[in-house]
């Protein structure tokens, strides 16, 4: 279980005002401002859960993740992962977690990935039998039998990421902290990685925390979402709840048997999208049935579906809705 109580983190950041004079001044005297990267963050994650961290750039996702992985010392509050305090970095704690950073790599650049696997085997004290079994499984699931024998520098970004994942899981960690694991990958590769991660979670009951810029990652992987904005939690709950909480509207999409002029479509309701033989309307939840009834009368409807608006739009609306004040920088 991961338990976080009023966790906070502040950084001292050097002010670098522009200009030559200011630059010369900074030679002697540097000014600092305090930035609150996380503030009063609390949540609980049960073992085996998959949780997605969402939020704009600089919202505090990575900071929180790093505090949970023991890389950053919290300036306030308390966090435990599996009953252990991350920042102590005890062996038991470190052996139970893994950290994957999509933008950084731990594989030795000039050597085949399996050499780094071997190193991790020694570091985590994995027995040879376990190591062989785990590696075989990971290699099969990720389809990297060939790749782990080639020098890392010769691998494509996607292949490298798959090997990074395998390398991070050699010791069968119970808690997975993944920071942007699919960044820069093409859609197919993202899908492969997601499927693998979900499979690992289901097979070993591992707990998963993931940050991503790609909504698809989060919607596909995480039943539970924690929304972080300007250092604090803006939402914590199920994906479907976020969908309905963010917006009270639904989307109704009709397939039409022939093309209908846009003007005619607009007469039916709030048109958000239309194509050769289709039209999508946005409508309040309680007005869905009325709209459908009306449309069936006036339009050549062949098929229809009712969906939530895409997560991207919900997020955009969410963060536009609450332009809460900038965290005021205080002088150090």
């Amino acid at each position, binding site marked *: 279980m991961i338990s976080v109580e009023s966790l906070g983190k502040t950084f001292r950041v050097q002010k670098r005002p522009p200009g030559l004079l200011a630059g010369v001044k900074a030679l002697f005297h540097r000014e600092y401002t305090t930035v609150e990267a996380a503030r009063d963050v609390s949540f609980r994650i049960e073992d085996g859960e998959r949780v997605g961290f969402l939020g704009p750039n600089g919202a505090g996702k990575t900071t929180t993740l790093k505090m949970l992985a023991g890389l950053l010392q919290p300036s306030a509050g308390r966090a435990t992962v599996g009953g252990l305090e991350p920042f102590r970095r005890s062996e038991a704690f470190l052996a139970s977690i893994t950290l994957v950073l999509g933008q950084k790599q731990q594989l030795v650049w000039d050597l085949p990935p399996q050499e780094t696997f071997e*190193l991790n085997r*020694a570091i985590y*004290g994995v027995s040879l039998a376990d190591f062989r079994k785990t590696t075989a499984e990971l290699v099969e699931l990720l389809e990297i039998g060939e790749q782990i024998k080639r020098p890392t520098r010769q691998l494509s970004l996607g292949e490298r990421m798959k090997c990074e994942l395998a390398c991070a899981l050699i010791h069968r960690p119970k808690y997975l902290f993944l920071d942007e694991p699919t960044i820069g990958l093409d859609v197919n590769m993202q899908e492969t990685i997601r499927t693998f991660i979900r499979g690992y979670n289901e097979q070993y009951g591992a707990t998963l925390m993931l940050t991503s810029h790609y909504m698809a990652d989060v919607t596909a992987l995480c039943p539970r979402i924690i929304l972080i904005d300007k250092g604090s939690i803006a939402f914590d709950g199920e994906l479907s709840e976020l969908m309905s909480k963010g917006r009270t509207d639904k989307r109704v999409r009709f397939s039409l048997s022939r093309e209908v002029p846009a003007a005619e479509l607009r007469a039916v309701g709030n048109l958000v999208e239309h194509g050769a033989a289709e039209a999508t309307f946005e409508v309040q939840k309680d007005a869905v049935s009325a709209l459908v009834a009306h449309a069936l009368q006036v339009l050549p409807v062949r098929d229809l579906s009712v969906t939530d608006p895409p997560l991207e739009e919900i997020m955009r609306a969410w963060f536009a809705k609450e332009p809460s004040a900038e965290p005021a920088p205080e002088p150090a």
Partner: protein
Amino acid sequence: MRALATLKAQVRLSVTTSLQYRADFLVDAAVELFWIAAAIYPLVVVFDRTDSLGGWSFDAALIVAGIFAILQGVMEGLISPSLTGLVEQVRKGTFDFVLVKPVDSQLFVSFSKVQPWRCINALVGLGLIVRSLHRIGYVPSAYDLFATTVALTASVAFLYAFWLVAASTAFYVIRIDNITYLFSSVLDAARWPRSVFRGVMRLVFTFVIPLALMTSYPAEALLGRLDGTTLAASAAAGVLALVVSRLLWKRAVNHYASASS
């Protein structure tokens, strides 16, 4: 023991890595030999005009230069690549991966890039020493050799401790790419017999940065001129340097974790 297994795996990995760049080795070796020659040349010029440098003859001074070459070889091959690598890891942020592993971070980092064949200097230094001993006509006793080993080990400990502390500054200052240059140039002062240090310099290079002793003590031990008390003191100082550098390392790592983003 897991630490030992890790160490073994780590050394194996770093040796395998640097084997990828064997061509570098020849160039490195050529450059190093060139530098040794360049550094000895001033001694040749000096002794062209005088017979003794504060009591050290040309050949005795060459023994010091030989010890210096050995230390430099150890530094180039075993110490500085790993710790330069640390600076890079901190800058790139991949040091995070070291911290989340259940190993001693200092141990892990210190052996992350071992390149034993860069110790070529050490071989040249050894040759220089043998040649000079032969010319002087002194045959070191078993005790002399033992004392030399102890003094030399203490010097390596010092060197490592200094490097570790210097590399730890990477946790505070982002850009210290040229720390290698700083290091080798500070070490430069250890090329000469300690008699060249006088006045304030003598104090600084004996007690603050014991460069004067790092090369001269092993050389004196080899010539049977180092007394037991001095030897014991230098061994103790070597141990102290290791302990202090370890404490500073831990502090630096904690700072990294509380201040970085």
